[in-house]
């Protein structure tokens, strides 16, 4: 493998998206070529630092519950809810049933 083949492959290699045979070729090239090894190392380091500095986001349980309730409330006139309970439908959770 030559250096000019690496730019198109390096991100795929770092993301683990290269087929095994191709990944091995990149491995071997990085061991022999300090310039490409430097490029790979700095990109990998950047990715790692980004993940450490900024956590993945997740909606909180409170937000989920409030929003779900608000949506049902606001859209109740468009949803086919049982006539006797316009805003409430009875759910039966199997794990709560007495044997």
């Amino acid at each position: 493998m030559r250096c000019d083949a690496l730019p198109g492959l390096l991100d795929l290699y770092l993301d683990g998206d290269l087929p095994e045979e191709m990944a091995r070729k990149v491995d071997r090239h990085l061991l022999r070529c300090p310039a490409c090894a430097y490029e790979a190392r700095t990109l990998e380091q950047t990715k790692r630092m980004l993940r450490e500095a900024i956590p993945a986001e997740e909606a909180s349980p409170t937000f989920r519950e409030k929003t779900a309730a608000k949506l049902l409330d606001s859209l109740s006139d468009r949803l086919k809810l049982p006539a006797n309970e316009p805003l409430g439908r009875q759910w039966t959770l199997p794990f709560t049933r007495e044997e």
Partner: protein
Amino acid sequence: MILAVSHSYSLLYSPKQKYFFGGDTFRAKRASSYQKGNDPNVTGHGESFTFLPESHQERRLVARLQSGDPDALDALFEQNVDRVFAYARHLLGNREDAEEVASEAFLRAFERATSYRGECPFRGWLFGITRNLCRDRLRQPRLLLLEPEAVERCQERNATAGRVETHMVVQQAIGLLPEEQRMVLLLCDVEEWDAREVAVMLEKTPAATKSLLYRARRALRDRLAELWEEEENEDAV
């Protein structure tokens, strides 16, 4: 004993187990099972949803929502809530605004669902609404306050002082990138979502999204190098 639960609370969350219960039958799934894009199968109504653009399951759910099926609303909400929130959170930079925008985006999308004709994936439509709401919010005049969340989050994770400093420099560097590059990095490398999903959110092709991501990684690396070089020069003076 039979426990009856109001439909208004059909999404019950168990913080300990991170499971949701809801729908017309007992359904349980790990809350995090589809948020990182690694194993994006979501169970609901006996169907297996794959979080990919233009999924047939999504179209079926939208059709059911249009006919007034409350379970379809549940399922579409569950499928998208983490992503819509995270997208807004990264665009706006704070949790409170992101929650308000995400809530409003769902409401608008579901209110207008009857006018949705499937020209693009429903998810793309929902993210378009979210993006516009975020931009409106960013245009509103506001007091420029230093966001304390970043520091607090570092402290919560017991980061050392040196690490907190590094995190702040990374956050500064990412703030220097153009919005598209910033978002693709946050969605692909922080949230670890599939580039095909991010392509829908950014209204790009998957190939263009990957190309943007690769450029963004190099741009972030170069900004970081510049910032640290500046810092070292200041220390040397």
